[in-house]
């Protein structure tokens, strides 16, 4: 690092400029990843926070929970499976509802489940619903922003069903809409509002099961499909598209970071060809010069990453609360590592150049 550090010190402006660009790029990467995380949980926290790892769904449902139907017989069959640690039925419906007495519609998702099963929400305010109560629901507290309070009634204008809010839970959204938890009795009444629907059904069965038991289970249950929680997540309406476009931006930024650094160091290396010739003549090995360059790249990238992480936390402070923005340490570590890798990859071109410089060029050269 003898040469690397002294050169950084000597050519401060030059390295400051490239460092500044790297900071901007890394900063943007972290902001976009914070938004992607934020949107992801805004979209689907109900699934992410669910204490289930797999779902049984209907095979023709394209892995979409909201399209699938599982009959009560199938649910009974699943309950007989010994490989399953725990399971609970889930009735899922996306509806537009109103607060009783008002006309303003709001989109919500109904999660109907066994109030004593693994999908029961954790109540943070008010009371829990149970399997015997009628027309009582626990709702995500984001509905407070819509003016919903404990004791309010929520109505579905289509079916004229109505439920009373008895408790609030948190971190329960699906497809960007707040989740309403109800018991299976109320679910039954809701689906029977459709006169054609004589028999009860569920949308899916949530499971806790070992990964290595999944294949077995698939063989056991007829006309049913077993998918992972992640597959279910990816198929929430709009989820894949939203995350996909943000991830594509991040991917582009990585490519840009790599190229910007590659070009910068390549140009500098070209400028220094003569200098490398002299250094090699007086006994510098290619590996020494290469380490020096990689050292500069790594140092510059690490400093840029650390500063941009600081700036990202600053950004979080400034952003209004309504912007879904969520910093995850793991994502930071992953992306920092990736940035470091692409930066080093970008410098390979310069290393090739350095390796090609012949020490003999130092002799007989007038300039």
């Amino acid at each position, binding site marked *: 690092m*003898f*040469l690397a550090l*002294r*050169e950084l*010190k*000597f*050519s401060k402006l030059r390295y400051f400029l490239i460092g500044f660009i790297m900071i901007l790029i890394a900063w943007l990467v972290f902001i976009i990843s914070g938004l992607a995380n934020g949107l992801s949980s805004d979209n689907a926290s109900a699934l992410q926070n669910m204490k289930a790892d797999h779902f049984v769904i209907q095979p023709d449902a394209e892995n979409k929970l909201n399209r699938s139907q599982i009959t009560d017989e199938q649910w009974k069959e699943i309950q007989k499976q010994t490989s399953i640690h725990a399971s609970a039925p889930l009735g899922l419906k996306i509806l537009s509802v109103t607060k009783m007495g008002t006309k303003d519609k709001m989109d919500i998702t109904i999660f109907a489940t066994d109030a004593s099963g693994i999908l029961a929400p954790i109540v943070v305010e008010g009371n829990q619903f149970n399997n015997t109560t009628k027309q009582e629901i626990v709702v995500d507290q984001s509905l407070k922003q819509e003016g919903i309070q404990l004791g309010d009634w929520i109505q579905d204008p289509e079916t004229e069903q109505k439920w009373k809010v008895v408790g609030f839970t948190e971190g329960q959204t699906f497809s960007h809409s707040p989740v309403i938890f109800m018991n299976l009795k109320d679910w039954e009444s809701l689906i029977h509002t459709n006169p054609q629907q004589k028999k009860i059904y569920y949308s899916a069965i949530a499971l806790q099961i070992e990964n290595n038991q999944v294949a077995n289970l698939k063989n056991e249950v007829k006309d049913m499909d077993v998918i992972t929680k992640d597959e279910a997540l990816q198929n929430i309406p709009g989820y894949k598209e939203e995350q996909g476009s943000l991830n594509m931006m991040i991917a582009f930024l990585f490519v840009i970071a790599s190229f910007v650094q590659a070009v910068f160091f390549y140009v500098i290396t070209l400028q220094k060809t*003569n*200098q490398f010739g*002299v*250094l*090699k*003549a*007086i*006994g*510098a*090995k290619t590996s*020494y010069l290469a380490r020096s360059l990689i050292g500069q790249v790594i140092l510059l990238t690490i400093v840029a990453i650390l500063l941009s992480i600081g700036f990202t936390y600053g950004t979080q402070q400034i952003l209004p609360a309504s912007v879904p923005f969520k910093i995850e340490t793991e994502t930071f570590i992953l992306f920092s590592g990736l940035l470091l890798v692409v930066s080093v990859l970008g410098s390979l071109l310069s290393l090739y150049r350095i390796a090609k410089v012949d*020490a*003999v060029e*130092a*002799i*007989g*050269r*007038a*300039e």
Partner: protein
Amino acid sequence: MREKLIFEEVSKIYGEGDTEVKALDRVSFHINEGEFVAIVGPSGSGKSTLLSIAGVLLSPSKGRLLLDNKDITTLSSKEMTNLRLEKIGFVFQSSNLVPFLTVRDQLLLVAELAQKRSKVADYKADTLLERLGLSHRRNHYPENLSGGERQRVAIARAWMNDPEIILADEPTASLDSKRGRDVVEMLAEGVKSRGKAAIMVTHDERVLDLCDRVLTIKDGRLLEMNSTQKTNLKASYSNNFIS
């Protein structure tokens, strides 16, 4: 007298077939301890090639090469690098200093490359700078030095690894005659006081009188001047210089 460097029938051929160029043709000479030898010759005669082979930057095509009584004719490129690091000091034409290192760091770099950074190296660097009258410039960058000062730093750097032989490639090319002469005097003085050897390629006839011997090269063949010729030469150059 001990021989520092021996060329035995050394030839160097570039390219092959139609494009073959014989840059050196059976060149033989010895350089002894304490000797400072100049190499002169027209452009394209093979001076740079000779210096590159002496400096273990190039391998000869034919012949034998001994440095400090060791055969160095066939070495791997790694061995060549290590040998240069340990036994050879270079003074190049110009701008051969690393622009982002201070004068003192230019010298310490040599110790760094040899993985010998220590108090001893620091002391050696300071002593060399002192001897070459550069102490007051130790924290300056090359861009703030005059041409003569830069070449003096280059000489100090060349001595940093205690080399057996110094190879100088037109060290006075970018200097006026007074400064050029100072620089060559410093080279000569170092060679004598340390009992090492030096070869200098030069076009500058005014400094030849500072050398013990002048080798003339023409079309890759070496013509050594005998002592009478040399005395005459010396006299005429000195006269030129004084007048």
